[in-house]
């Protein structure tokens, strides 16, 4: 008899480039470790699976003291600074050969990561099912809880 597989249940609530990585990396790594993985995308986290947005997620320089650029943080409020911070982050990531968000999404889909879009926040933010990438199901809190109650690991990101 085979043991019941271990499971990770993630909530992705942020839509910035840096915050899109942790849920996708953990979910794809979990699949590689013969675990089950599911991600519930809610609020701005929906951008990660929004086909018009997932390829252009941004890094916020404002209020982000970790940006390794020696300048007053308030300058991050200037027009163009978000684009610049995003460009810098993308260039570092590509130098380090980190997989892109579209590539990680493909890996997640191929690996069978269960991806759930939150219906309530889709309604709030005017996101339609056809705005989301293929392979995403739609559900609510109960859908997530039903999946997560049998999970060994659950994280809110």
């Amino acid at each position, binding site marked *: 008899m085979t043991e019941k597989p*271990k499971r990770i249940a993630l909530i992705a609530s942020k839509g910035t480039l840096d915050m899109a990585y942790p849920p996708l*990396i953990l979910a*794809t*790594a979990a*699949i*590689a*470790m*013969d*675990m089950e993985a599911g991600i519930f995308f809610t609020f701005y986290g929906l951008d990660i699976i929004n086909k018009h947005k997932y390829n252009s997620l941004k890094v916020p320089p404002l209020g982000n003291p970790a940006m390794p650029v020696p300048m007053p943080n308030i300058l991050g409020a200037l027009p163009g600074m978000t684009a610049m911070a995003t460009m810098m982050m993308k260039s570092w990531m590509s130098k*380090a*050969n*980190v*997989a892109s968000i579209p590539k990680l999404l493909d*890996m997640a889909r191929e*690996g069978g990561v269960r991806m759930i879009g939150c219906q309530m926040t889709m309604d709030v933010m005017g996101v339609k099912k056809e705005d989301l990438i293929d392979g995403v199901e739609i559900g609510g809190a109960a859908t997530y809880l039903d999946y997560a109650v049998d999970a060994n690991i659950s994280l809110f990101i």
Partner: protein
Amino acid sequence: MKGGIKLAEDIKVDSTLDCKGLVCPEPIVKTNMAIKKLQVGQVLVMESTDAGATSDMHSWAKRTGHQLLKEEASGNVLKFYVKKMK
């Protein structure tokens, strides 16, 4: 069962996977895909330049039940010999 320490020359390699240049999570994702294509008992060598791969490969082997036979390092290239156990 964990075997004793073997020399690399003694290990018959059935497949090699080049993960050089790739970083987390790709080495273990690709390793897991590659091991699925082998028969039980066959050996895969995964080559990586990711310094985090050592810890990750130990955890991966522990959780998946495959056996990490041996690790080698030459320069910045790490080699992991994995035996498919199931």
